[in-house]
């Protein structure tokens, strides 16, 4: 089955800097990959989806890349704000399965 690794359990950065979160997977390349945000005690909220034939996707201050050769997705938040502090989940989808990473907890320090 698919194994997903998100770079670190926790990441602290200074406000205004760019946060970069990494998602690596081990087996087959998924048809698409999603990133969700989860705040403590809340359900995940969808942020971005990128398909296997897309290199990059942007939404406001968010950018996702997808490299099927490296089996890696990078999630960037530019001009980070304390309100961006949350856990970010990488989610991979294949034909009939959905795999969640354990997430990276991002803290943006004012």
């Amino acid at each position, binding site marked *: 089955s698919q194994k*997903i690794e998100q770079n670190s*359990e926790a990441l602290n950065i200074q406000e205004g800097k760019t946060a970069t979160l990494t998602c690596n997977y081990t087996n087959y390349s998924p*048809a*698409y990959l*999603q990133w*969700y945000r989860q705040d403590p*005690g*809340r*359900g*995940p*909220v*969808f942020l971005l*989806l990128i*398909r296997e034939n897309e290199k990059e996707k942007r939404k406001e201050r968010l950018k996702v890349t997808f490299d099927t050769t490296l089996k890696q997705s990078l999630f960037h938040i530019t001009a980070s704000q304390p309100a961006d502090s949350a856990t970010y*989940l990488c989610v991979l*989808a*294949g*034909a*009939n*399965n*959905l795999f*969640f*990473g*354990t*997430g990276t907890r991002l803290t943006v320090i004012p």
Partner: protein
Amino acid sequence: DAMVIQNPRYQVTQFGKPVTLSCSQTLNHNVMYWYQQKSSQAPKLLFHYYDKDFNNEADTPDNFQSRRPNTSFCFLDIRSPGLGDAAMYLCATSRDLRGSQETQYFGPGTRLLVL
């Protein structure tokens, strides 16, 4: 504007006492999912309904059951909760099955505590 609603937000039950968690949606989505999430872990899919078709994950314990009486509502029944069942239970919906590139909309979750 609530789209996926879960009640209650917090549920306390006793060891072995049956408990039911509820989920409703206003999105008219075909698929409803139940996930279990423990602290610092990824959400774990328990089962899903595609319309009225029930799909159980292979490693979901028999202690967990689900009902979907209509499109809008879905219930999670835990027949005999154990201490290890204490977790956040998340309900999610999608327009179609996950393999069809559909994003999932999650409810706020129900935090279950087993005493």
